[in-house]
């Protein structure tokens, strides 16, 4: 059986205190929210902190001035079931509702999902397994086992909600020891499998702000083999505005095809000003698939996953445009 290491567990009352503890303890400590990502990783010794700092309760889904503000510890189940979100931003609500499985969505949080560790099937393995094959860059080693000639780690960003938030132009509220700042979700990530977050390690995500303008059409399509539990093999988030049959704005972002949620502005820009037809949709999907670079470090072949990006983007655009048929 895999066991958690011995840990000190702190429960600060406020986000500010949580940030202060982490800034004091440095890399010895980590935040934990629902723990659905972190605990299994700790059991496999993918991280070896000696202290966990609980993110304090930051609850509530509120609508303020055309925005939704979701507290960072709102669970994925709560976000997925929120009637306002479901009506206004079905793409984001769907993405939250498609993460893992019902029990994990009852514990896992929206903040934790945005900060979820990148994945690689050479890395999300037990200590003993990693030791037998030889440790890799992301933990304890000095080469990448997927791309041995590469100086960097290609672990995959697997958050379902991050691309869904990105296409909305969402931002996160960050609290550090010295106060609060707002950062666009698009700037929260770095293209690096190891240092995948651009925020300071001691900054707590306290909320996510999702713009919800009137008439915005959204969808999220998640590719996986089973009806539940699996991480995305690829995901496509779309936000679209239409003037009659003409696209007035479109943003598309992908899950699980790079070390960060990957927005593909070319595809969105291509559709702007065009009529949605089979041809334009498929051309946009083709553009969207281009920068996707899945590697051989997740389930099934990267060849198939790459091919499927076009398919799911196409379907996500259609679903966004015709919400009634989904």
């Amino acid at each position, binding site marked *: *059986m*895999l066991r958690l290491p011995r840990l000190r567990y702190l429960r600060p009352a406020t986000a500010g205190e949580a940030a202060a503890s982490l800034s004091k303890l440095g890399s010895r400590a980590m935040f934990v929210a629902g723990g659905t990502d972190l605990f299994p990783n700790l059991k496999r010794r993918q991280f070896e902190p000696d202290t966990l700092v609980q993110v304090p309760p930051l609850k509530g889904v509120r609508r303020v001035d055309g925005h939704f503000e979701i507290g960072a510890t709102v669970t994925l189940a709560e976000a997925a079931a929120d009637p306002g979100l479901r009506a206004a931003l079905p793409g984001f609500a769907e993405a939250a509702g498609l993460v893992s499985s019902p029990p994990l969505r009852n514990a896992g949080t929206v903040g934790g999902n945005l900060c979820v560790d990148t994945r690689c099937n050479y890395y999300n393995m*037990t200590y003993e397994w990693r*030791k037998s094959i030889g440790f890799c860059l992301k933990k304890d080693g000095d080469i990448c086992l997927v791309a041995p000639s590469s100086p960097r780690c290609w672990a995959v960003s697997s958050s379902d909600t991050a691309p869904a938030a990105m296409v909305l132009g969402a931002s996160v509220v960050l609290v550090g020891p010295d106060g609060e700042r707002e950062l666009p979700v698009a700037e929260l990530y770095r293209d690096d499998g190891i240092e995948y977050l651009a925020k300071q390690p001691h900054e707590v995500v306290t909320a996510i702000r999702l713009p919800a303008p009137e008439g915005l059409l959204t969808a999220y399509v998640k*590719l996986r083999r089973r*009806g*539940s*539990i699996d991480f995305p093999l690829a995901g496509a988030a779309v936000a679209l505005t239409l003037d009659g049959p003409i696209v007035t704005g479109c943003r598309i972002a992908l899950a699980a095809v790079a070390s960060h949620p990957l927005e593909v502005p070319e595809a969105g820009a291509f559709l702007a000003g065009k009529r949605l037809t089979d041809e334009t949709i498929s051309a946009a999907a083709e553009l969207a698939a281009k920068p996707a670079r899945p590697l051989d470090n997740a389930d099934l*072949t990267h060849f198939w996953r790459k091919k499927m990006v076009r398919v799911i983007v196409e379907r996500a655009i259609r679903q966004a445009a015709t919400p009634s048929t989904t």
Partner: protein
Amino acid sequence: MPEGLRTRGGVGESIPRPDGPDKVSGRFSFGSDLTAPGMLFGKTLRSPHPHALIRSIDVEKATGMPGVKAVLTAADLPGERLYSLHKPPDQPVLAAAGDEVRYAGEPVAIVAAEHPEQARAALEAIAVEYEVLAPLLDPVDAIQRGSVLRELTIRSGDPDAVADVVVDGYYEVGQQDQAPLGPEAGLAIPTPHGGIDLWVATQALHVDLEQVEACLGMRPGAVRLHLGGVGGAFGAREDLSIQVHACLLALKARRPVKMWYGREESFTGHVHRHPAWMWYSTGADRDGRLVFVKATILLDGGAYASSSGAVVANAACFGAGPYRVPNAHVWSGAARTNTVPNGAMRGFGAVQSCFAYEGQMDLLAARLGLDPIELRLKNAIRPGDRLITGQALTGAAPMAKLIDLCQGLPEPPAPSDSLALPGGAGNVASAAEVVRGTGFAVGFKNIAYSEGSDDYATARVRLQRGPDGAAVVQVKTAASEVGQGLVTVCLQVARTELGVEAVEIERADTTVGDAGSSSASRQTWMTGGAVRDAARLVAAEVLKRAGPPAQALAGGHVLDEEGAALAPIELFLDEPIEREFEHHHRPTSGLDPAGQGDAHVSFMFVAHRATVDVDAEAGLARVAQVATAQDVGRAINPLQVHGQIEGGIAQGVGLATMEEIKLKDGLIRNASFTDYIIPTSLDMPEVAAVLVEEPEPEAPYGAKGVGEPPLISSPAAIVAAMRAATGRRLNRVPVSPEELAGLSECRPGWLVRPGQSPAEAVRPAPPL
């Protein structure tokens, strides 16, 4: 008979299982829940290499670490150094310095400590020096180098028979894990007199016992095994895992030692279903009557023999399908390679060859322009026919009836909500993208042990007055309840034979005679038979004590010839009655050099029809329904039979669509339930099942086994449905999305003439 004199809950009734409520409410104690005061935790150091020479093992540092109470290597073994289900044994209890490790995950040292983390730290501190050797991983390569665990050829009829139409096909079956939810677990407790008690979740207490005694070097009687709560088995618990290790550590530390594997370790801690590579050629006349089947069935046996021998035989004996096949030439064999040993898994060789011969039948139907079901009906084997091994079918063999009934079952409606679509919950498909296909397949397999082994089971039945004075039955066997419902069967049998409803099934242990293994669908017949026969001896004694006109027992009473109550049974129990019986099945014979012989005692037949919705662009599939007709002889408990059918089909869906252990350079790449995926409730199809009850003349109550058939032909039917929906070849299970989407195809890495040994195989010419 008046209602009061009927025995309720006997043979044939769908009574609920006695262990059910505890299991679903979390109160049942599984092997991993075992605990004893002062127990230590045992852990295993395993080889990281698939093939290496151990130069040295240094445990000195580990021995002195905090909490560490025992550190053992091969140098400390007191008895036999090798164990196996196979004779002679070939698998080291611990790999020794100076010897080789032959698969990644092979145990090298064991440690017991006060705390699991201390044991883990001690493992880290053991220094093993390896000289890494080249692993032998390709089974054809292995066969060509003479690294063979068993090979077998079956030849019947005319080797030169000529057919009007011939179809050739190549098929692969991936390596499936049994994935029981309870991992390997046990607790060893030394006795004050130098013996040892081992509680363990196993499929066969006495089979384990014999090996444990030998490896501990202990006299008979010093070791006792007790059944720990078993959380599923499916073949994964036939070989030893923690048994000898936990005992060795407990004897050394003189403290109870508990060992249990985590999920990741479990993947290297037990055998798996043999992956298979199969080359087939099937010939028929113009009307579709089979003329010949030629086949080469190559299995990867992994590093040690385990039950490869029996798997090779099953794959061959049933390799032509439940059909009249006048001429056959089948080569079946298992290669010894440097991978985790393969062995028993539900279906046991019959699953692999079924995927191939049923694929062949569909090719043949297409070639002849015949309906695939018609073709199967035309060729269905019938009572009195001979198998390709020359054995005549003397028992029930309702193959044609199964086909008829199965095809008549209602088909499922079109998917009504998006969750029921392929990739459903992910919003991937809409109804417009989905094509439905239907496929059909049949299969068969033996029950119980074969090829001349003396197969028997023992039961002890005691009838006495309970605390309230009423009659109570106690049934004791060493047979493992592994989830299949054996305790319910024993209870029902005892009720039926003794007419007493109060029946206690005692915990299985080795203080009673051998019951054999809970495998090969055999326990209802074997242990059920032993309980019946022991109970009949007890009943005879009651009737003797009662004297004439006593004739029968029912509803708690002794009855006369007319069924009228004479007296309550407890009246005759001043002295308890206890009887023991060993039930043997008819002897079978071995297979001769041409693979001929009456090797099996009985056969179970099954038909499956699958309906699958396919999103052919994305390569995703959702099995909408599996319909089945199964030959059960007699359903001792219809509810449990349906449970076995649903469970077996779940594993069949898994094999057809997703389950496969992936190896990279001999290392398991997906040793976790995140990466080795099994169907969830959302992936489980509707099951429509009909039971065919034609009593098997030789079987107790006419009941055949029921555990394995649901998994034999369900994968073949599901893949046939996918082929129907897409027109693609799909000659490999599990079918990958890539193949289903037509983006790749499985091609043979070697060319083999069907029937030939892969020793003759050559590499195909590279594609132009």
